[in-house]
């Protein structure tokens, strides 16, 4: 039988929302306080949802230490206590949580092959969250 498994992870990072394609006024109008030139930070909560057949021998969709070690080495080590604007994936993209969600989804989709990736969901604060399930 097919089940979904979701694991939550946390990391902390800073960012500044700013687009070189907009004027200073447009940037301020679009991004508000998030356009502050010195940046600001969040505690990001990332939920990774995978799915698959529950293995008869183990009772698992996938072994949790496998997922944990992948996310720790490929996601948390990459993003925790970093300035997102300085990372390669955000050299030409604004590090909104939408774009962060897509970036993390793509890393997990490409690299974690032990279960099917259903969704990446990120809470930027307790008040807002973003989800990406791939382009349908």
């Amino acid at each position: 039988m097919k089940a979904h498994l979701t694991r939550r992870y946390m990391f902390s990072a800073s960012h500044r929302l700013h687009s070189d394609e907009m004027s200073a006024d447009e940037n301020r109008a679009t991004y508000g306080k998030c356009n502050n030139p010195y940046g600001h930070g969040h505690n990001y909560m990332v939920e990774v949802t995978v799915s698959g057949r529950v293995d008869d021998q183990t009772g698992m969709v996938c072994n949790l230490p496998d997922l944990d070690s992948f996310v720790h080495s490929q996601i948390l080590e990459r993003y925790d206590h970093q300035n997102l604007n300085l990372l390669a994936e955000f050299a030409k993209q604004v590090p909104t949580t939408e774009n962060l969600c897509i970036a993390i989804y793509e890393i997990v989709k490409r690299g974690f092959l032990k279960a099917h990736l259903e969704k990446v969901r990120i809470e930027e604060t307790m008040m807002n969250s973003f989800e990406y399930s791939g382009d349908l």
Partner: protein
Amino acid sequence: MVYLTRKAEFSASHFYHNPAFTPEENQRIFGKCNNPNGHGHNYTLEVTVKGAVDPKSGFVVDLKQLKDVMNREVLDALDHRFLNKEVPEFFTRIPTTENLAIAIWQRLAPKLTATKLHRVRVYETPDLFADFYGEA
């Protein structure tokens, strides 16, 4: 169609062990969860039903009935139990979070005749949960 979710909590102990594996394999695959004396969790259960809103009552489901079924079929059987030793499903199946979600679905689905079960979500900890949608 409206979805309605009811939460409940139960506490239980379990351990992961497959008699078809060698002791070394059990230890490698299940790690600390293989301790035969068991360990426990405070589980949170979310049961989501779906249906049309009854024009007379304004309900998708009578919450009292849903609560009674959850108490009788799930909580009375699982709360403060050693899952491997006291709950028949887990005499042969490993009581992983995935299998718990499946077992709870199988207990509830035949009893929820007035409404349709949509999802069973079981949190083992706040950072780990499994979803089962009744998929084969």
